[in-house]
C-alpha cells in the first residue's frame, strides 16, 4: 500500500514556530533571530544595541547556549529582560525551546525581542523559531570567504552585520570583495558594517531595528 504524505519534514518545528509567531503577533512584538559562528560578536552587539536604544526601545533577549549562563548574565547586567536556554549539547535552538522562554518574558512590556542562537553557522539556519527575520553576523577575523562556504545562513537572513571592522588593519579581510559575494548570494540582504569596539555602524543598525519595530507596530 502506498501512502501519500507530502508533509514537510520539520513540520513539528514549523507548527511550534507558527504558534510563537502568532503569540508575538498578538503583542505586535518584533523578533530577530541572531545567527553566527561562535564568537562573532552576537552578545557584544546586543550589549551595544541595548545601551544605544535604552531611551527608545524596551529590548528583551532569549539567550541560546549549549552550556553556561554567561551571556544571559551579561545582558541582565544591563537591566534588560532575559531568559537563558541551555541546550546541553544540541547544536541549534528549536521553536519548542523558544516557546518555553516566551512564557517567562514580560512580552507586553517589550518593543523588540532578540533570540541569540547557539554559535554555529550551519545548523541553526534550518530551524524557524517564529521570528520576524534572521540576522547573520560575520566577523572580519573569520575571513571573507565564509558566505560562499557556509551559504544557507546568509540566504535565509534579511540582514547581515559585518562585525569587528576595527580589526580590518590586522587581517586580510577583503571588505569590498566580501560585499560583492554577499550580494550575489542574497541580493536583497541589508548589510551593516560595524565595530562594537569603536561604535562604527551601530547607529545605522539601530535605525534599521527601529524601522522593524515600527513596521510591526503599524503594519502596512
Amino acid at each position, binding site marked *: 500500500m*502506498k501512502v501519500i*504524505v507530502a508533509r514537510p519534514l520539520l513540520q513539528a518545528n514549523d507548527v511550534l514556530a507558527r504558534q510563537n509567531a502568532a503569540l508575538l503577533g498578538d503583542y505586535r512584538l518584533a523578533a530577530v533571530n541572531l545567527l553566527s559562528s561562535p564568537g562573532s560578536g552576537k552578545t557584544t552587539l546586543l550589549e551595544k544595541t541595548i545601551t544605544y536604544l535604552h531611551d527608545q526601545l524596551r529590548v528583551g533577549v532569549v539567550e541560546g547556549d549549549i552550556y553556561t549562563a554567561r551571556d544571559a548574565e551579561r545582558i541582565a547586567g544591563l537591566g534588560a529582560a532575559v531568559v537563558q536556554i541551555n541546550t546541553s549539547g544540541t547544536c541549534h535552538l528549536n521553536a519548542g525551546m523558544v516557546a518555553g522562554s516566551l512564557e517567562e518574558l514580560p512580552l507586553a512590556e517589550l518593543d523588540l525581542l532578540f533570540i541569540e542562537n547557539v554559535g554555529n553557522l550551519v545548523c541553526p539556519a534550518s530551524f524557524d523559531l517564529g521570528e520576524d527575520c534572521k540576522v547573520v553576523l560575520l566577523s572580519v577575523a573569520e575571513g571573507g570567504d565564509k558566505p560562499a562556504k557556509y551559504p544557507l545562513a546568509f540566504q535565509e537572513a534579511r540582514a547581515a552585520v559585518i562585525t569587528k571592522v576595527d580589526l580590518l588593519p590586522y587581517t586580510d579581510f577583503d571588505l569590498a570583495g566580501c560585499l560583492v559575494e554577499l550580494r550575489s548570494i542574497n541580493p536583497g540582504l541589508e548589510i551593516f558594517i560595524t565595530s562594537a569596539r569603536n561604535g562604527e555602524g551601530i547607529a545605522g543598525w539601530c535605525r534599521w531595528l527601529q524601522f522593524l519595530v515600527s513596521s510591526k507596530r503599524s503594519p502596512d
Partner: protein
Amino acid sequence: MHELSLIQSLVELVAYSARENGITRVTLVKLVVGEYHGALPGALQFAFSCLTPDTPLAGAELEIEIKPVKLHCHSCGLVFSPSGWSAVCPGCGSSTPDVLQGRELFVDYFEGDEREGEAGESDSSPAAAAGQ
C-alpha cells in the same frame, strides 16, 4: 543541517502516518530534499539505516530525490540553475530572482504492508511510534 534531525523527524512522521493507516511494516520511503537545505544522500542513508531498527521503518528502503535550485529572473524571464551560490541571472545580469525550486524538504510518500486487526494498537503518539 544536521542529518540526524532530518532523519529523526522523518522516522517520527512516517511511523505516525503508518500507524494512522494501519501499516505495520514500511518498505519504502520517498524523501524530497531541495539543494538549499543540503544534506549528502550518503549521510542521510547512513542515518536512516542507524535510526530505523526497532521502528516500523526497520529494513525499509530510503529513496532520496534532490531538487536542484531553479531560479526565475524577473527582468528577462529566464529560468536558470545558478552556478555556485550566485543568484545573478546569466541572461541579463539582474539579481532579484524568485526561487522556483530548491527549498523543498518533505516526505513525498511511503509504501508498506497492512496487517488485518493490528491497526491502532497501543499508544499512537508520534514519539512512541518512532520507538524513542
